[in-house]
């Protein structure tokens, strides 16, 4: 695995150039540019805020909107990395046939692009949160964004990036053999979306006794690492941090294992 990482470092210019190309192509034909692709999460948030804030949000609109925006940004990153990432090897077939680069460079290309896009969404979410909190209520030490929180989310961001890359790599290999993996992932993502406290607060599940659903949900783990410091102004608990690190390690092991098993064979299936 170290070999792969050094090879990727060696070809980092190639990677940067392709990620930049992807971003340029994505935002190329739109007038609003970056804003256009943020339209989806922002529109979704507005709809949910208007329709569901009393039902699911407990009536506290600013808090619900912040919760929603941050959740959508993180969820969007994880979902898109998995779903677009699994097409990475097939989409980059022409490079694979020309040059013996490590295959996880191609999944990294997708994940980097998604990460940049989601970081923009997250920044917008945080800004929105600050503005809304300052404008609507008396900002107390409790509700204002704690600037230290920006530091505390860093481990969460790093862990979710590595985990997303690992998941994308694993599914990219599987997708070469079973082409409907992408569709199955999309269906699974829909299911997981509603099982994860993105459009509702975790307390909704806890109060109804579905606490197990919360703890067993891996997406919720990464969501907690990023959302809790931003919303509550407190560092993530050690327990959750360790759990996140453990989960990421497991995913990385899985990806490394899949790569080692399939890398010599996948080229014959492309």
């Amino acid at each position: 695995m170290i070999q792969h990482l050094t090879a990727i470092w060696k070809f980092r210019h190639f990677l940067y150039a392709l990620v930049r190309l992807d971003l340029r192509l994505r935002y190329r034909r739109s007038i609003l540019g970056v804003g256009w692709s943020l339209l989806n999460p922002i529109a979704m948030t507005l709809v949910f805020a208007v329709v569901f804030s009393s039902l699911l949000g407990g009536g506290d609109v600013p808090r619900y909107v912040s919760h929603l925006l941050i959740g959508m940004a993180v969820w969007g990153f994880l979902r898109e990395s998995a779903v677009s990432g699994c097409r990475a090897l097939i989409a980059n077939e022409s490079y694979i046939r020309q040059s013996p680069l490590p295959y996880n460079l191609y999944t990294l290309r997708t994940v980097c692009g998604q990460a940049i896009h989601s970081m923009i969404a997250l920044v917008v979410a945080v800004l929105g949160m600050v503005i809304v909190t300052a404008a609507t209520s008396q900002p107390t030490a409790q509700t204002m964004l704690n600037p230290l929180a920006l530091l505390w989310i860093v481990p969460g961001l790093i862990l979710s990036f590595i985990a997303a890359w690992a998941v994308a790599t694993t599914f990219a290999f599987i997708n070469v053999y079973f082409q409907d993996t992408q569709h199955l992932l999309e269906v699974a993502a829909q299911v997981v979306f509603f099982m994860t406290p993105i459009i509702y607060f975790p307390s909704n599940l806890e109060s109804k006794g579905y606490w197990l659903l919360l703890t067993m949900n891996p997406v919720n783990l990464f969501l907690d690492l990023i959302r809790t410091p931003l919303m509550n102004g407190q560092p993530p608990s050690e327990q959750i941090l360790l759990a996140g690190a453990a989960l990421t390690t497991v995913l990385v092991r899985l990806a490394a294992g899949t790569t080692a098993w399939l890398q010599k064979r996948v080229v014959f299936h492309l």
Partner: protein
Amino acid sequence: MAKIELDDVHLTFKVHQQKRVSFKEYIVRGLFRRGASAVAVHALAGLNLDVRDGDRLGIIGHNGAGKSTLLKLIAGIYPPTGGKRDVLGSICSLFDISLGFEPEASGWDNITYRAYLQGESPASLKGKIDAIAEFTELGDFLDLPVRHYSAGMLMRLAFSIATAIEPEILLVDEVLAVGDLAFQKKAQTRMKELMSTARIMVLVAHDLGTIRAMCNRAVWLEHGVAKMAGPTEKVVEAYIASVTGKPARAAA
């Protein structure tokens, strides 16, 4: 020091009837116990090759003999299913000319992508990019997205970038035939220049004139087996004799 060493190399493809299966089909097939209809293609069998600094190897043979497969194996794209492959030196490969281009990006951008793909850095590329653009003779076409290029233009672009990088091992797969006469002459000159600096070249071509002009050694592949290897003239003559059916000259 560059070298290519292939020691009893085998490469077998398992070609499935359907290239990509879905989970559903896989399960259904399993339920009905249909045997997986796969054909094993023994693309390369028992190949031994020893190429050193200064060698220019030509690979000839009939269509489907395994020439391109051999080239891809040397490049490291297909791992051998048997035997050992030992290649030292930076490799640059010119395979299917339409591969490895980003169709929506301009000619200039594609120069940078391909250069980075070959391991260059922005600093080292800066000095070379104008020379590369000049060699292509594409002029203003470089500003257009490459999906508008003809096959010959793509080949000029690919060849210019590949040879500007000064690889230690250059692998060329029948691409030069697409260029116009002027470019073919230019390409031959460039390759001769390369041969004085860089080390090894492996060339697959059907044009035996090119093989004779550019290579000092040749390998004749037939159905994945190296039928003959040695100095270019001998191998080419034997190949021609077998194809045209004329009696071979007094064999050595």
